[in-house]
């Protein structure tokens, strides 16, 4: 891997001893010996195992839960339902007044996605727990379900979550996170070409090789220690404290190395219920997702549907861009309201466009709740934006790379979300790519700079 030192040479001062050196990682020796401790790498005498009974329906009312056969099953120590959870709601960041609190830890009146947790069974072996979970009887009344983001927004669509009252998250800006700069209609009037395109993606899984899970252990000093693969120690601890109505000082969270995260281990869906099981049984409890749960139950990257309408002049300038982006949050919010907002700040891409209108919607459907994944709010947007740039270039018979040079942002340019561009380097990346990959562009583009607008 080469570091090209000629760019921004006057900004790159620094005489360092350690920085810039490829020092050997501190953890690799442990990795190659197989002794890096992941959360499940411990022996806990008396360990109990938790398995979850999950909704088999996309959308249904819960009529009755009968866990009596499960409770009687050999090896079962405890069966936990919604009534046992002191504060039965995931609290996101309620400590700093960030919600919404629209998702129960265990379902009680309704299930809103196939796989939603309903009853937790705790037993002295994995096998007992699985067998007992299969004996829990839940009576449901199925309800119509909605799976398409635009269908979910039509009048008459099945309502996914009564908490919201409609199938979208209500921002203070209305049904979408809005970004407005200039006047797109005026911009479209001035354009020589107008195109509107649609882009889609489907949910994508983090699929880390280590599955989500934790082991909760009643510990010394009347505390509970939770060994977990979470990506956010305090976020999870504070959520658990609120859900369990247990003061934070009684909880001790220990992480280590997570066996791959990619954003999939920030939803704290296992720690609170496992800690509760440990509290109720007085025994250590493990809850480790099997691979099916990791695939279908743990959150995925939200599917998105993005419409981009552009106004383009003959000389290759984008004069107006309107983006409508629908983020499929699944049945509950988790971090999707923030993800859609992050997308709104990311559009229209690293290009300077004088008239911009962006609306990003966080939409509820009856599927596995989506949440953060590597590139949250940005990855699918970049797919749409950069394919669109390719189409626009060809519309005006321009080279796709040259077209990007013409529109690239530079220091001092106003971004659509009203921040001035600083530290831009898109032009330099493209210049290096052009010469290195032998994708020739006109020499005037190789003379451009992110630091000033000339040409």
């Amino acid at each position: 891997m080469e570091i090209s030192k000629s760019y921004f040479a006057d900004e790159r001062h620094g005489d360092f001893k350690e920085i810039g050196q490829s020092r050997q990682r501190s953890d690799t020796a442990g990795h190659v010996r197989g002794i890096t401790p992941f959360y499940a790498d411990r022996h806990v005498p008396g360990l109990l195992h938790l398995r979850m009974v999950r909704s088999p329906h996309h959308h249904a009312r819960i009529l009755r839960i009968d866990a009596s056969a499960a409770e009687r099953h050999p090896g079962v120590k405890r069966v936990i339902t919604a009534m046992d959870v002191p504060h039965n709601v995931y609290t996101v960041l309620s400590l700093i007044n960030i919600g919404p609190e629209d998702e129960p830890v265990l379902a009680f009146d309704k299930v809103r996605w196939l796989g939603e947790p309903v009853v937790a069974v705790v037993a002295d072996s994995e096998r007992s727990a699985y067998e007992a979970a299969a004996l829990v009887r839940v009576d449901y009344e199925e309800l119509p379900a909605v799976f398409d983001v635009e269908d979910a927004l039509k009048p008459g669509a099945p309502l996914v979550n009564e908490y919201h009252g409609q199938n979208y998250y209500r921002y203070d800006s209305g049904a979408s996170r809005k970004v407005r700069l200039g006047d797109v209609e005026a911009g479209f009037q001035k354009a020589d070409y107008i195109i509107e395109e649609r882009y889609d993606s489907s949910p994508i899984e983090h699929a880390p090789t280590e599955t989500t899970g934790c082991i909760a252990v009643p510990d010394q000093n009347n505390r509970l220690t939770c060994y977990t693969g979470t990506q956010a120690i305090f976020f999870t601890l504070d959520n658990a404290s609120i859900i369990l109505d247990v003061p934070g000082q009684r909880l001790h969270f220990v992480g280590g190395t997570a066996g791959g995260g990619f954003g999939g281990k920030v939803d704290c869906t296992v720690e609170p219920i496992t800690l509760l099981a440990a509290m109720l049984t007085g025994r250590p409890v493990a809850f480790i997702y099997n691979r099916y749960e990791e695939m279908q139950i743990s959150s995925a990257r939200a599917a998105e549907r993005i419409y981009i309408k552009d106004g383009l002049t003959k000389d290759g300038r984008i004069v107006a861009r309107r983006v409508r982006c629908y983020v499929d949050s699944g049945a509950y919010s988790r971090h999707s309201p923030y993800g859609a907002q992050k997308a709104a700040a990311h559009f229209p891409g690293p290009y300077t466009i004088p008239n911009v209108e962006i609306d990003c919607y966080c939409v509820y459907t009856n599927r596995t709740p989506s949440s953060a994944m590597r590139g949250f709010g940005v990855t699918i947007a970049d797919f749409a934006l950069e394919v669109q740039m390719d189409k626009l270039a060809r519309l005006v018979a321009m080279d796709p790379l040259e077209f990007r040079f013409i529109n690239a942002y530079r220091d001092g340019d106003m971004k659509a979300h009203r921040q001035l561009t600083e530290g831009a380097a898109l032009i330099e990346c493209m210049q290096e790519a052009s010469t290195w990959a032998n994708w020739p562009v006109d020499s005037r583009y190789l003379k451009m700079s992110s630091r000033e607008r000339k040409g």
Partner: protein
Amino acid sequence: MTKVPVQMTVNGEERAEFVDSGMTLLKFLRDKIGDLTAKAGCLQGTCGTCTVLIDGEPRLACVTLVEDCRSGTIETVSGLSEDAELHPLQQALLDHFAAQCGFCTPGMLMAAKALLDSNPHPDRAEVEDALSGNICRCTGYEPIIRAVLSVSGSNACGDTAERERCDGNK
């Protein structure tokens, strides 16, 4: 639950235990022997993180019954390094920065060892094939392949096309 006796060699040591009938080799290694190096990534034989060697062959411990391993010779990562010295494969992964989260690393090592024990000078395609049952989500595989090739002998990067490919990734 019926208990059955099993006896085998694990990393050169004779082990004899009573186990629940139907116990997997993975559970035996982790819970009975206390060897935590083999990992439980999927428990269905699809990810390779539980790869160990049984009589020199790479096997998935999560879908192998320990009862079927009687009199077998089991090797895990715990047995790779003699004393404090790392096995050449372990050293190669270290030198090539070929591990990030480390969860797939034990399985990769055992699959690679099985290859080199039977084929000391594999070409790139043979390395890819040997590791094709081991999933990695972090590294993109390339540094692992190069690490294994570096152990395999002087012509590590094979023919011109392969060498170009190797050099291109420096």
